[in-house]
């Protein structure tokens, strides 16, 4: 678990942590705000709807400059996947649907399955150490048959099959189950 907050939490002073965090947000904000060049050099179609996910970094398939932008239609075009599971954050059994995280990475032509994840609420985490070949980790946009709203920790959410694979329920993986996911920077 390597969020900025986590890095700072290791016996450093809280004020330092705070300034680092703030600096990270500034940088992120600049990235989002700056106009990006559009180079359509890949087969990845351009996003026509609202962009829900931005994949950048070490990828080979792009549709917006160095980045791959996905709208809901593009995501829904990917192989569907789903499962039901209990989560540490909700009561009862919840059904999640979407596509496999590995399929999203493949669609973007990612060179590895490790990426730096950023959420709408500016949560950041280094996603890694999970065997995506073995475990069907979801990028979910539907919960219990409905699209997930921002108020319900959507629109995109990384979800582990905690019930099917109890060994996945670790603190580290809980930190990797990012909600309100917006950016994946592939390493």
């Amino acid at each position, binding site marked *: 678990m390597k969020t900025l907050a986590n890095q700072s939490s290791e016996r450093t002073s809280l004020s330092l942590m705070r300034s680092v965090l703030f600096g990270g947000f500034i940088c992120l904000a600049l990235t989002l705000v700056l106009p990006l060049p559009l180079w359509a050099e890949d087969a990845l179609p351009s996003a026509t709807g609202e962009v829900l996910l931005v994949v950048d970094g070490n990828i080979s398939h792009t549709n917006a400059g160095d980045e791959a932008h996905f709208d809901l239609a593009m995501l829904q075009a990917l192989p569907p996947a789903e499962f039901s599971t209990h989560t540490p954050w*909700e009561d009862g059994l919840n059904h999640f649907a979407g596509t496999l995280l590995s399929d999203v990475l493949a669609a973007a032509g990612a060179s590895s399955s490790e990426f730096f994840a950023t959420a709408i*609420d500016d949560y950041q985490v280094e996603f890694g150490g999970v065997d995506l070949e073995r475990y069907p980790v979801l990028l979910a946009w539907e919960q219990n048959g409905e699209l997930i709203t921002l108020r319900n920790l959507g629109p995109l959410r990384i979800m582990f099959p905690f019930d099917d694979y109890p060994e996945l329920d670790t*603190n580290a993986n809980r930190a990797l189950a990012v909600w309100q996911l917006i950016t994946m920077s592939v390493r």
Partner: protein
Amino acid sequence: MTDPSKPAGVGIERLVISVAATAAVTCVAILVVLMMQTNKARLQLQQDGVAEFNFVLQLEHNLDLLAMAALQHDLAEVTGPEPSLTRPLEQGAELIKRFDILYSIVLTARGRSWAQGFLIEAGAPEYLKRLRQFVAEFDTVIQPGQQVSSAQLTAISVRSQALSNAVYDIGIAMFQSKSVLRDEISSRLDWLINASWFFGVSFILAMLTLYFLLVRASGRAGELFQQSRSSQRQLKTALEELTTGDSQRKAQNRFLAAATHDLRQPLQAMQYYLAALEAHVPGERGRQILGNAGRSTDAAQSLLTGLLDISKLDAGVLEINLEEVDLDTLLTRLHHDFLAEATDRGLLLKVESRGFWVHTDPQALERILRNLIGNALTYTESGSVNLSVHEDGDGTVLVAVEDTGVGIPEHEQEAIFNEYYQIGSPEDGRAGAAGMGLGLSIVRRLTRLLEVSLEVESTEGEGTRFTLRLPRISGGEVTPPAGHVQRAASQDRLARLDIMIIDDEPAVRDGVSVLLQQKGCRVTAVSSVDEAREIVIQHDSIPDLLLADYQLQQGRTGLEAIETVRDEINEDVPAILITGDTSPGALDAARSAGLALLHKPVGASELFAAIDVCLQAGAGLPHAGMVSTPANEEPLIK
């Protein structure tokens, strides 16, 4: 440990060692696992609280951003038809987003909010209440299409900022408490891990040391085992040698007994002949020579007797028969027997009698005293040899043999009891007469057999005193000395005797015949059982006495001869059995037949005395305690 010649026990040892080693390795493995688990727990502990802390930071951050968004929305240029204090939220997508994010965390529509639970756990229910109140209050306001007033925006900004600061304080407090606890546990775990390391190293060292010691001890045990085995082998060899040696010694003893027996026959004959010759030697010189010859045969006889005694004592075949012994009778006889020798040497032989009776074996006691007296006479040049009897306080009688001889040096007073030990050099003149120095060693053996003590006091050049301590019997009867009387009487008795001699050795037979004839006896000499029977039948006469050698030709015995003769004449005539055989069988046979028994070599005077006693016994006279007492005769004691 790998030596294949090692005993089977080593296999078990190796098994034990391997089991112990396996256990030790298992212990180490468990220790390693424990350490790993502890380390994992330590790492998990370091992670503990991180997620919660992250949440606090996220919450604070989101509240800050909401406050900022509200502020920015309030300050935004309104491009509407008329300036208003209200701002339409269509242009405030950022504000709505930030509010929705806060809502998703604080008041998510579904189920229990993780954040709520956490904040309650963090001990901040008041804060949670405020937070929920804040979100609920503006939920209806901050919606797409709604108008929001500047005052409301200001309120959102201010309250959001306040909530941010509050959650920040909560986070600080939580962080501090968690980190303190964590550090404490962490340091304990560190200590545990260090202790584990220390324990592990110590344990391994201890096991290695133990293993080393065990291997060494095992090696040492193996060595000891080998040594023990070789010792056992040596012991076995020694035992075998000893056994063989013992059998060799037995063979030697048998040879010695046989040789002694064979030597006795001609020696005895010679004694008889010399005794018979005495009457035919008129010259003084001739008698002198004859006397010397007699002494030589006596010495040879003494030597043979000593040899036989020693071998019998060592063989342990001698039985002792304790009875009441009249010391006076014994001492008087001894005085009589040794008087001639003492006189020859010019010594005074004194005997003091006190009328004591003792409880002991008479034959053994007489043998002891004879040896002591003979020894005293041998080693005394001039002066006297005294036999004295004293009473000691504790119910014992002391019999002392005292001389005025050369004495025994103190350092030799133990050695004199050894075989063949003689004071002075063997070439020292008369020493040979002592019979190879066996006298005192026989005495020592006999006193041990009788369990009586023998004390030696001696001063070199002044004399020696041997003292025997014997158990006394009170109220004994004193028998007057009768030696001379007996001798005188026997002269008369012998003169009228009809004696039959049964002996297969012509020399002995003839010697005894001549000797007895000189005494006036009528002698019939035969060589076998059958001859004896024929003579008895032919002559139709009853002999007064039978004198038979035990071992006859063709495996016949003197016992048979005596019984045959007694059967023929139908009368138990007195009989004396003479034997060189010391086997218990001959003894028992003679005893059970009630015969007197004489052992070779038999001197002339001894023979006469035996005949005398035998006839007295036959005539119903009381026993004189002499050598030939029937049924009590010991082969050792003449």
